[in-house]
């Protein structure tokens, strides 16, 4: 495909001022999302996934700053005027939040929450918006949509609410949907339904999707590419299959090993990742995972690796990457991998 990626995030930084210091929640992230592609972002709590999503959406908390570029269909949306922003956010890029119970206004009926965006951004009338709303609800599999429109959020079950959230996000037919942990608050069986739904609409509509989750398994079966985040930076990016089949970053690998799976032998200890995430206000100089990595050497601690290609569509920011199934190009630690 020669087409430009829908979204190009370039060296995005998003820092938040707090009384204890500046939290460098996102610190130089670059990521591409192609047309009709589903990209997963995984990482532990606090790794900066949500802040990244919010930075892309322009939803930064007070006393925060961004730098870098977020190029959406050729325009850098960080530098848009207010008017132009309204054209992008909501209409072109939509977002689904983690907790469907809290991201729907509890005191506003489903109908208005669904239609207000359409009416404002697309300038359509009430009855047309309502008609579309019904279609959307049907599309996301909400039974009896007429009744649901009149409901308040609390009258819906968790799964229903998340469906409504997805319908709201789809309302203006966005090019890109960002789903920030859309199933974390849901039960397994409902999570399953929502994940299936997201994948289906993404495919049917030919939409791009960024699926954020802390659960590697959630991302695994539902994305084309996956980015692993650690302490505000990307650790590993690549085709999902590659990253899961042959994780190269030590962190990715450790995460996978620490996850108890259905075939884990019982009463055997899980593999641990020692230590914890670094304090986001006092991030280390070099590789941010170095302190917890048993393969770290002084270079790791001082310099910190850059994201480098280790195979077709597979990049790792690790000086001592794990062995892959196929022999990777050997990389000089710390150097510019491409030599440009």
């Amino acid at each position, binding site marked *: 495909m020669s087409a430009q990626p829908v979204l190009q995030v370039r060296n995005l930084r998003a820092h938040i001022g707090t009384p204890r210091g500046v939290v460098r929640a996102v610190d130089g992230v670059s*990521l*591409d999302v192609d047309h009709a592609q589903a990209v997963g972002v995984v990482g532990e709590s606090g790794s900066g996934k949500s802040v990244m999503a919010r930075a892309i959406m322009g939803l930064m908390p007070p006393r925060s700053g961004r730098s870098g570029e977020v190029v959406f269909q050729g325009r850098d949306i960080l530098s848009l005027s207010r008017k132009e922003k309204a054209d992008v956010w909501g209409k072109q890029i939509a977002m689904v939040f983690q907790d469907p119970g809290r991201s729907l206004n509890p005191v506003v009926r489903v109908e208005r929450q669904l239609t207000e965006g359409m009416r404002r951004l697309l300038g359509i009338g009430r009855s047309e918006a309502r008609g579309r709303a019904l279609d959307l609800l049907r599309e996301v599999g909400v039974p009896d949509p007429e009744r649901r429109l009149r409901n308040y959020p609390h009258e819906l079950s968790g799964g229903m609410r998340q469906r409504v959230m997805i319908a709201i996000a789809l309302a203006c037919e966005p090019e890109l949907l960002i789903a920030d942990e859309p199933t974390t608050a849901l039960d397994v069986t409902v999570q399953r339904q929502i994940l299936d739904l997201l994948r289906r609409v993404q495919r049917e509509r030919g939409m791009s999707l960024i699926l954020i989750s802390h659960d590697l398994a959630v991302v695994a079966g539902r994305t084309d590419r996956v980015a692993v985040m650690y302490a505000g930076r990307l650790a590993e990016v690549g085709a999902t299959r590659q990253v899961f089949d042959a994780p190269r970053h030590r962190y990715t690998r450790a995460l996978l090993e620490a996850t108890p799976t259905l075939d884990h032998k019982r009463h055997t200890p899980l593999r641990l990742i020692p230590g914890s995430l670094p304090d986001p206000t006092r991030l280390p100089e070099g590789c941010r995972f170095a302190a917890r990595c048993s393969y770290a050497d002084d270079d790791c601690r001082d310099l910190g690796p*850059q994201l480098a290609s280790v195979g077709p569509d597979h*990049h790792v920011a690790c000086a001592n990457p794990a062995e892959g199934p196929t022999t990777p190009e050997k990389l000089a630690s710390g150097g510019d991998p491409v030599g440009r």
Partner: protein
Amino acid sequence: MTHSDAVVDRKVSSRVAPAAAEPIVSRPRTSRSILVPLSYAWLITVIASALLADLLPLASYATPVGPPRQPPQWGSLDLMLGTDNLGRSILSRCVYGARVSLVVGTAAGLVGATIGAILGMLGGYFGKRPDSVVRLVADAMLAFPPLILLLALASILTPSVRTLLVGLTLLIIPSFIRLARANTLAWSAREFVLAARNMGAGHRRILVKEILPNVLPPLGAYLPIVMAALIVAEGSLSFLGMGIPPPQPSWGGLISDGKDSIADSPHTVFIPSLVIFLTVFALNQAGDHLRHRFDRTMHD
């Protein structure tokens, strides 16, 4: 994904594109600007001068020091803030007036808050019957016109600081009951209360050790506002003729005394008003600051 991403992602690392600037982030001010030290300075001045009034080189608050309604002037300490309708030093009256106003604000505020907090916590924690009784009491106290209470108290007991304290305390109790009850309801539903019960803690221990520390901060935050309101309310009582007996001054009383000459000698009203305002403002600032400082749960 295409080949393009290989190119793109290669450019990705921060070192490759050092041009990208660090975002500019303003840190929230940790201290509340210069106003906080100024507020403390003011409160300390007020409290200290109230306590040490007798030692200060001030004229008596009861005896005229000059012609009535003198505007503020330099030169003599006693005339610095001018004189009141009777020619008494407003400075001296403000300093001594702080005693009554502060006592009214603090004592009525604290006693009211304590009683209200106890009742509210008992109601909120035990629920059911105790709660109905507490709510009934609070409702009845709120439905009781405050004026009646004060007028009646003023006629039963002779007007004095004590009468005033009783009346004003009764007035603020129900608000604290409500506040404490609402907070207790919220906190006692929390898991750590269950955890304490699981440790075998009894009701009293849970109330005192688990719930009280959490209910105190919102009450504390409300207290400065109530204290401010009490200081002002004391003035309204003077206006209604139920204030403390003369010649003892109070800030509210000073305002009330001066109100008829507001057009000719505005200082007789504005100086005490300013004192009240500064104190109210300083109380709020200090309250906010203390909460930030000592309520460690407020950090981050």
